[in-house]
């Protein structure tokens, strides 16, 4: 999948339209700085936006060729019902890919919190993680 700059800006919450700036506004003469100017006269106004942080691109971790014989962590983000949903994923693996081992964990720190202890455990003992979900 390719991601162009316009789409990327949209994804990080910045409207590509604002980048067009003066050209998008059809600026062809020096604007007048006068709030009382006639409606047809041009005004120059200031951009009200703050500064989003620079985003370092993070490459994804290498994938594993097969899940067979691997331990997959099924991790709940703590939202109601995620535990039951992940239990169904474990059941699906039992029925359809029995060579896959699964184990369930509830992530610490609520929906948005980090859980470095769990990440370290998965890195040491597991091969991959499936995390769920929204509502």
């Amino acid at each position: 999948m390719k991601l162009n700059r316009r789409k990327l800006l949209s994804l990080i919450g910045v409207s590509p339209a604002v980048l067009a700036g003066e050209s998008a506004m059809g600026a062809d003469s020096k604007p007048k700085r006068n709030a009382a100017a006639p409606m047809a006269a041009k005004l120059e106004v200031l951009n009200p936006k703050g500064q989003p942080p620079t985003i370092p691109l993070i490459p994804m971790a290498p994938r594993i060729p097969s899940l067979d014989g691997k331990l997959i962590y099924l991790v709940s983000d703590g939202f109601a019902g995620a535990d039951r949903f992940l239990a169904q994923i474990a059941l699906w693996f039992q029925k359809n890919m029995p060579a896959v081992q699964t184990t369930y964990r509830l992530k610490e720190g609520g929906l948005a919190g980090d859980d470095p202890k769990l990440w370290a455990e998965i890195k040491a003992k597991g091969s991959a993680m499936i995390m769920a979900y929204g509502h």
Partner: protein
Amino acid sequence: MGFPTAPIVTIAFKDLAKSNAASRGMPLERITFTPHPLTNKTDAEMYAALEGNDPVTGKNVMKEIVDALTVPLTAEEKKTGTISPDTGPPTYSDTPKNLQRFYADNNMTDYMPIVLPTEEEVEAMLKGTSHKPDEIVGKLSPAKGAFPEWTFNVRQVAINAVMAGAQPEYLPVILAIASTGQPSLFSSTSSFARMVVVNGPIRDKIKMNYGIGAMGPFNDANATIGRAWTLLSKNLGGCGMPGQTYMGTHGTSLNYNNICYAETEDKLPEGWTPLHVQHGFKKDESVVTILSGWSLSNICYFPSGAYPELIKNWLTHFFSTGNGSATLVLDPTVANDVKAHGHATKEDFANYLMKETKTPAWMYWDSPFNRNSLDQAKAGVEPYATYLKMGPEANLPFSRYARPTRPGAPDAPRSGIEIVVMGGETNTYWLGGDFSYLTSASVDKWA
């Protein structure tokens, strides 16, 4: 994290999940989507969703999850480097009519006309503070921890203050609000509202309303300061993009000015302290206090008994989120009645309410946060077993407004109730809602 991950998200959060992954540096994260919602589905229905298709890609959900973990990465997915988001040029120029449309179309307003932020207007606004235009005021995001924080300076706050129609003398109040790092448009499906209470000498200096109609559209400072908070939340924190950084299923019209008012300090009953003093400031300091919640009810009811009893009963049965926080906004007439019935301070009244309110049994057992108690009740563990036997219509003998809320918890309980006195004394009415205290900030610091 160093290992392959397959996140699963319900379809309602497609844009949020993708934009959040991008803003954290992984724009091509392999996310599998399922139908929405799943929370209320049976186990069999959840299993069926796994065997069904991702509504975004049309691919089988479980195949997509397995592929997410096993298909080798593409060159794009391995990319490193940085992205510097560009929020546009410093200025725009066009006719006033077109500029109004442009700002609205790009979600930079609340969709009502703005004062166009010309250099001249912004320079005049900056005269409202002694701080330098390029001084960093703070950081803001739609939800701390869940979204990257944007940075902004005094000049950028001033631009938004102009757009809201504020006067230069209001700028220190708006800067104080911005400095808290609290957005008015908090990202949640639950349509949070916010409240800002102003205390101290600044209230009179800028002629804020704390009398008749203070929460209504009757005062320049109340209206535009509250409005500025929402504009700056959008423009200085990236908040309020429906589907991406705002998920409130209904939204709330309270966000138009965020319940901005001042406390009626001169009519506090003797011995009662203003809100900012309760939170550690001196009486002669000017302060903004931020509260967060969802709803506020206007209680127009004449009790046959005393107001403390009425408010206690209302709090017992009040229900929105059941989260155990409450804020009361009492007209001075009601506050004086409460004082006359023996509550010498706000704290005393809040403690009375905390101790005397009960918890409806149905509400207690229905809460997902009390599932452990329910299990213990069913296993015969006291006092839960007795509570369960009382039936769903009973009122359990402990308060939701005591923190911690679990009965028998070892820590000393404290009240989750805030009390503000405000009103024009035209009747003995009061407001109650689920707002809770977030933070306070000095206005004087930004003068």
